[in-house]
C-alpha cells in the first residue's frame, strides 16, 4: 500500500467516523506540476489527496492561531518530518489543542526544488511526473520534455535532513524511511559556508542587495507555522514602531530579524518561508544560521521533544555565556 493510499484511507476513516471536521493533505493544483494544500470535508473527496515529492507545503501552518475555520474545528492533518517538528514546537507551548488534532505522519524521501526546475526553462512547466527509477520528467507548455535525476533536484534542505520521519503522529502513512543516526552525526550546516566565508562588508553588500527586493507581503511570516501572532504581528505595529513601515533595505532586514528572533528556539527550519517568498529571498541564511548557533549554544534542535520548552523561555543556572 502506497503512502498515498494510506493517507486516503486514514482521511476516509477519520471523516467517516466523525473524528475530524476536515482533513488537510495535498492535492494537484491548476496543473499536474503544482501541488496545493487540500482541505477535504467529505469521504467522497479523499481521492483528491495525493503524495509525491511536490508536496512541499507545511500544513501545520493551517493549524496555528486563527487558521482553523471554524475556530474549534477538529482537524486531521498530514505532516512530513520537518513539518512535524513545527507541530511539536506548537505543542510544546500548547499553541494548538492536541485534543482537536488527528495527525497522519508521512515519512519523506525529500521534496523537489520546483523553483530550481523553473529556472531550467524559459517557458511554463505544466507537468512534473515521477518514474519508478528516481527520475523526474518535466514537461513545458509547448511540449518540451526533460528528465532529471530526482536526487539532484531536491530542495537543498532535504539533502541535509536529519528528521525525514515524523516525530509526532497518531498514524503513520507507511514504514519509516532510513534516517541518520542522530547520536553519531552532527547537523550539516555547509549550506551556510559560502555566506559565512564573506567578509563583514561582503555580507553587508549581499544583504543590501537581497533585502532591496523584499516587498513586505508577509508571506514568510504568515506561512510560518510557528509564527502565531498573525494579525498582531509587531512588524505591522506603529506604536511602538520597532520596524519602520517604510519599505527600504534596512527596515526590510530588520523586519526579517524580528521574525527570526521571534521564532528563535521554535523554528526548525522547515523552509516554508523560503518557498513562500514571492521574490525568492534566501531566508535560510538567517533561520539556518540561527539554528546552527542554537545547536552550538545548547545542543538544541527545535521541535524535537514534546516535553522540552523553547530555549528562550527557560534558562539554566549553569549556562556559560558572557564574560
Amino acid at each position, binding site marked *: 500500500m502506497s503512502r498515498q493510499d494510506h493517507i486516503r484511507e486514514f482521511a476516509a476513516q477519520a471523516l467517516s467516523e466523525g473524528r475530524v471536521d*476536515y482533513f488537510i493533505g495535498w492535492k494537484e*493544483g*491548476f*496543473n499536474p506540476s*503544482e501541488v*496545493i*494544500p487540500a*482541505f477535504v*470535508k467529505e469521504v467522497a473527496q479523499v481521492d483528491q489527496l495525493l503524495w509525491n515529492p511536490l508536496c512541499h*507545503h507545511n500544513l501545520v*501552518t*493551517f493549524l496555528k492561531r*486563527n487558521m482553523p*475555520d471554524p475556530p474549534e474545528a477538529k482537524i486531521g492533518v498530514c505532516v512530513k518530518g520537518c513539518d512535524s517538528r513545527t507541530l511539536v514546537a506548537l505543542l510544546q507551548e500548547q499553541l494548538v489543542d492536541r485534543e482537536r488534532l488527528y495527525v497522519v505522519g508521512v515519512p519523506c524521501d525529500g521534496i523537489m526544488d520546483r*523553483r530550481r526546475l523553473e*529556472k531550467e526553462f*524559459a*517557458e*511554463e512547466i*505544466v507537468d512534473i511526473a515521477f518514474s519508478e527509477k528516481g527520475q523526474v520528467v518535466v514537461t513545458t*507548455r*509547448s511540449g518540451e520534455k526533460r528528465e532529471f535525476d530526482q536526487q539532484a533536484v531536491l530542495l537543498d534542505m532535504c539533502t541535509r535532513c536529519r528528521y525525514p520521519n515524523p516525530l509526532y503522529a497518531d498514524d503513520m502513512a507507511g514504514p519509516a524511511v532510513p534516517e541518520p543516526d542522530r547520536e553519531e552525526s552532527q547537523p550539516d550546516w555547509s549550506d551556510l559556508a559560502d555566506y559565512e566565508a564573506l567578509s563583514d562588508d561582503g555580507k553587508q553588500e549581499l544583504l543590501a542587495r537581497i533585502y532591496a*527586493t523584499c*516587498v*513586505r*507581503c*508577509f*508571506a514568510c*511570516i*504568515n*506561512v510560518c507555522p510557528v509564527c502565531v501572532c*498573525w*494579525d*498582531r504581528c509587531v512588524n*505591522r505595529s*506603529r506604536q511602538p*514602531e520597532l520596524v*519602520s*513601515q*517604510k*519599505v*527600504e533595505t534596512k527596515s526590510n532586514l530588520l523586519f526579517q530579524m524580528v521574525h527570526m528572533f521571534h521564532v528563535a528556539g521554535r523554528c526548525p527550519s522547515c523552509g516554508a518561508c523560503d*518557498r*513562500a517568498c*514571492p*521574490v*525568492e529571498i534566501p531566508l535560510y541564511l538567517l533561520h539556518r544560521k540561527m539554528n546552527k548557533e542554537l545547536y552550538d549554544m545548547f545542543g538544541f534542535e527545535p521541535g524535537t521533544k514534546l516535553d522540552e520548552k523553547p530555549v528562550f523561555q527557560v534558562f539554566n543556572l549553569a549556562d556559560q555565556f558572557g564574560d
Partner: protein
Amino acid sequence: MATKFLASEQLPALLEALARDARLVIPAKSDGLVQFDIWELRKEVELQVLLARQSPKEWVFPQCETYLRFEYAMAAPEETQDGASGVAPAGVAPAESAPAQAAPAIPHETIQLESLNEAPRQVIFGLRPCDVRGFVQMDRVFGGYGGFYFDPLYNARREATTLLAVTCREPRSTCFCTAVGGSPAGQEGVDALLTEVGGGFVVEVLTAKGEAALAAAVSAGFLSDAGEAQVAEAVRVKTAASAKVDSPFTLEGIRENLRANFADDRWHDLCLRCISCGTCTYVCPNCYCFNINDSLVETEGERYRTWDNCFNPQYTEETSGHNPRAHKANRFRNRFSHKFWYYPEKYESLLCSGCGRCIMHCPTRIDIREVLRVMGAPAAAPSEGVAAAAAPAAASSATSPVADQSASTEGKEA
C-alpha cells in the same frame, strides 16, 4: 500611425537610444528572478520569460514614496518677567501675549512643509499588454474618473511614462486576459506594441507618446518601415497567441452573482488555504491600495505612503480595535469582489487584466479563475445547503462571520 520593423540585433541600440533622454525600465534577470529594473543597472532585457515576477506597477505607483517633508521651527518661548529663570536667548521675537488665565499658547512652534513629487521622464519597455491594461484600469481611481479623487503624484508620473509593450507569443496556462476583455496583443493604453516575428519585431506605433519615444531610433535608422509580409506574420502571431489563452470564466452577470453570493459559506471553503499574505496584491498590476504614515523625529518629519493590501488584518481595523473584516474570509472576499463588483460599479471598469501573476505566485496557488467560477456564478440552489442568495445576510449571520456586514457597506469600497 506608422508600423515599423526592428531587427533583433538592433534591440540593444534601440534601448540605448531610448535611455538617452528618459529613464528606461526593462524586465531583466537577476539571481534567476525577472524583475523590472533600470536599464543602466541591468542591460540584458529578458523577453523569453513571459511575465516579470512583479508587474511594472511600482514604476508609476512606487511601493513606498515620501511626498511630504515637514519641519517644526522652534523659536524661543515667551519671555518671562522672572529674571531668575535665567535663559534669555538672543534674537527672539516676543510672543503674543496670552490671556492671563488660559494656558500659554505655543507661539514658538511653526511648521514648514515641503511637498515632493518626482516624475522623471521614463520609458517602460518590454511589459505586456496586460501590464499596460493594469495602468489603464488603475488610471481611473487615481485620475479623477467620475469626479472622484485626482492624485497628483500618480498622474504626474503616469504622464511622464511611455509604455512600449511586447506581444505575448506564448501565453501561459495561467493567462486569462481575453476573459477580461484584453488580448495578448492588446493595444489599450499601449504607446507602441512590438510583436516578435522572424528576424525581429514589428513595431506598431500607437500614440504620439510612442512616436516621440521612438523618434530618435527612427531617425537613427534602427527602425525601418515594416514590410507587408512582416505585418502579416505579426497578425498571424497575434491570432495564434490569442488562441492559446483560456477563457476560464464568464463575466456575464458576475457583479450580480457576487452580490448574491456575498454571504455565501463557500467563501470560507475557498479561502481555507489562504494565508492572508499580500503576495497576490503586490504582484498584481492594478491593486492600488495604500497606507499613509507620518514619521517624526524631534523636529523633522515626513509623510509617506506605502502599498497596503486588503489581506492585511489591519486593513480595515478601526481605532477601537473593532475590525469589520475580522475573518480571513471577509478579506479574501474583498479582493475578488472589489475587482469584479465594487470597482466596476464605481469606475465602470474591471480591475483585473488577466495576467495570472496572483495565481502563479500565491504561496498556496489560490486561483482567481476558480474563485470567479464558483462565486461569480449564480448562487447554488438551497438544496445544496448553502444559505445565500434567497436568504441573505440576516439569516446566516449567526453562523457565518462573512455575513457580519451588509453588502452595501462593502460596496462603498474605494
